[in-house]
Structure formats: C-alpha cells, structure tokens
C-alpha cells in the first residue's frame, strides 16, 4: 500500500530492437482506441512519440492541439524506455512514471511495464477514485472512467452482500 506500483509483462516473438521500435514509432497503430484507452475527448487523437532522450509522448488532435502524456527520461532502443506519465485530470505538479523494459529471451522479447508513483497522488484524486462524483467532469475525461464505474458497481454489490 505504501508503494503503489503496477507491473505487467508479456512475451512477444520479435527481437528487442524491433519490439522497441514498434512500441515507440508505431504506438498509434497498436494502442487501443476509445475512451477507456485514449486520453481526451473526442477520443480520436493520434498518439506519437518524439524519439530520443529529450522526447515526449503526445496525443495530437485534428484541430492541431495536443496533450503531453509524458516526457522521456530514458531512451535506450532495444532495452529500456522510461517516461513520466500524466492524465488530463492531473494537476500541473502531479505525475506518475512508466518504465518499459525490453529483455531478450529465447525466441523473442519479454516486455515489462512498471507503472509507479500512484501513492504520490492525493488520496481523493479523481484518477484514484472518480467514484465520489464531485469531479464528474474530470471522470468523464478520465482514462479509467469505465473501469472506475465498474469498480463502483463492485463496491456497491460488495456492500449489499456484507449486510
């Protein structure tokens, strides 16, 4: 609880250099679409990495505006990618960190994502819990709005069950 970190990994049949390249230069082609996965309405923005150690990850919209998801902190092709990670509901000084590792294994690459720093967000942060409803507008724009609704449903079910 004191260290709120999420780690997931997957093994892919591609070598680490290709995995890194597809992860970064083709992110818009594979990143899932829709309000659950994209960052801001109308949910049709295009994701793009500016490559290199001083690069950024942006979501760009048809009207020419963009949202900066994060700034690259480490850019090691075929090995590791570290970037800051912000959602539109974050305040200016709030951030989390995403650390992606590409590790050569037999027949391909293990890609691991560690998303850390959630504990730094204030307890009633809408990204932590849009459930209270006071930040409904935030929640609507939030990346995990639907997940949060599902969580709320689960919480409310649980409460009934416990009675």
């Amino acid at each position, binding site marked *: 609880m004191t260290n709120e970190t*999420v780690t997931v990994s997957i093994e892919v049949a591609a070598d680490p250099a290709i995995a890194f390249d597809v992860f970064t230069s083709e992110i818009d082609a*594979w990143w899932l679409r829709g309000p659950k996965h994209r960052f801001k309405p109308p949910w049709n923005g295009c994701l793009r990495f500016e490559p290199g150690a001083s690069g950024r990850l942006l979501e760009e919209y048809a009207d020419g505006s963009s949202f900066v998801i994060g700034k690259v902190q480490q850019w090691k092709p075929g090995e590791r990618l570290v970037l800051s990670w912000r959602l539109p509901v974050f305040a200016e000084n709030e951030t989390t960190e995403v650390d992606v590792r590409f590790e050569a294994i037999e027949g391909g690459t293990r890609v691991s994502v560690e998303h850390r720093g959630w504990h730094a967000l204030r307890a009633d942060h809408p990204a932590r819990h849009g459930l209270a409803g006071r930040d409904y507008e935030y929640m609507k724009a939030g990346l995990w709005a639907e997940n949060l609704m599902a969580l709320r449903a689960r919480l409310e079910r649980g409460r009934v069950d416990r009675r």
Partner: protein
Amino acid sequence: MRATAKRVERPELDATLVALADPVRRRVVDLLKVQPRRAGELAELLGQRAPAMSKHLKVLRSGALIEAVNGSDDARVRVYRLRPERLEELRDWLGDVRTFWNDQLGAFKARVEAQSKARRR
C-alpha cells in the same frame, strides 16, 4: 455507461483514502498486516507520542481500515486489527490499472509479431 454516471457521494471511500494519505497511518496498516497490536506498541514502533497515535488510530477507524477488539490474552486490553475488506477494494482499483496495461500489451503483441514477420521477409 458514462451517460448514466451520477454525482454519487461515497463518503466512506473518501474516509478510507484520506486515512491512507498519511505515511504514519500506512505504516500502521503495514504493521497490522502482520499481527494485531495495542496502541502503545504501535506508538513505540512508529516513534509517535500517545496522543498523536490515538488521533491516527481514530482516522483509521473512521476509514473502516482497522477495528479495536478485546485482546485474546487479557480481555481488558484493547488491540487493533486490520479490516481487510477495504484494502481489498483498493487493491481492485490498482487491478484496474493492471488490466489497462495488460490490454495494451496484448494489442502491442499482436502488432509487433505481425511487423516482425513482415520485416523478416
């Protein structure tokens, strides 16, 4: 689903998250994961004065994270123990973040394997 979202107050969840927003209180939760303890023990382990500890325990109780029960050795002694239900709910929240990344990596796998094959040709 979003269209049906209403302004629903969840004061008890607010209280839980507020309770966990403090490092001392998170340490209390960590300690109680191991075993129930008396207030005095917690204060000593965490280097807190009794009144401060008592305040922290009150916040944790109102966040439904801990409860006071009579000790098994001496019924006159109150010990604090964890109420795991609320922690389970919060773990679910991080589980949603995990699901999000699992979905993305699944989509990534499909793309990178197709591209890898194409580039080898």
